[in-house]
């Protein structure tokens, strides 16, 4: 249960947003930590050989970064009851120093029974949604 009180939040409240600049090293680090070493995330030649524009980020890295919007706000792992995402567009990560910027936002969409709330999450890269419908249900106090 979070210290954030159900009574104190309103539908439409926007959680503090986060940005992340994806670099190639992020994909290497995530591959090592998660065990997902699919070459489309690590090997540019391979990614292009299967029809991708370049190396793409793990969808699960993007889900995790979107999740940080919620966990940073709630500060309580027990409060998260469910988390679901659809992946709509890959985050392409070229081999350069600028990387690929993605902005993560979250908004309270619904106050439910039992002091639970539904938070809708979005992730955008250059205006393009990289996540489809993405939702966290959280338990407030």
């Amino acid at each position, binding site marked *: 249960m979070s210290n954030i009180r159900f009574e104190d939040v309103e539908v439409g409240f926007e959680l503090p947003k986060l940005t*992340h600049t994806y670099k190639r090293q*992020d994909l290497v*680090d*995530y591959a*090592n*930590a*998660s*065990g*997902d070493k699919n070459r489309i995330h690590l090997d540019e030649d391979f990614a292009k050989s*299967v029809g991708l524009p370049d190396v793409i980020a*793990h*969808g*699960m*890295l993007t*889900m*995790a*970064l979107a*999740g*940080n919007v*919620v*966990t*940073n706000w709630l*500060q*309580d*792992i*027990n409060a*998260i*009851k*469910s*988390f*679901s*995402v*659809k*992946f709509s567009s*890959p985050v392409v990560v070229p081999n350069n120093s600028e990387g690929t910027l993605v902005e993560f936002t979250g908004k309270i969409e619904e106050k439910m029974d039992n002091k639970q709330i539904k938070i809708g999450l979005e992730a955008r890269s250059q205006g393009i949604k990289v996540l489809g419908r993405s939702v966290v249900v959280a338990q407030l106090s």
Partner: protein
Amino acid sequence: MALNQAFLNRSYPSKETYKVTKDQIDDFAKSIGDSNFYVSDGFASPTFLISIQMGAMQVALFDPELGLDWNKVVHGEQSFEYKKPVQVGDELSFISTIEDIKTKVGNDFITIRSDVKDSNKIDVATLRATLIARGTG
């Protein structure tokens, strides 16, 4: 290529239990930039279990009889339902079940549900992964 419908509802219990270590939790949190205090308290980030689900699913997904072309697979959807947080020292077992197989506009879709329990058979989480094999035509 359509997937083999005979795989629908097949279940694959994990052959071993997965012992969750502090290093795994810390490395995962670091790789996603999760520096919340629950990590230093020994609790895993919300999507941590994917690292174990991927391994647990592969028994089914790599079976050539299924007909899944790994060169064309992308991750379509992912969900987690949480019963209790994962923490250091948990010994987790998975049962992965192929919940749905379908073909839509030339693409193959497969959904795998993984039910995760701890060593006391207490429910920890249910994960669902939908993978899409993009059609060639």
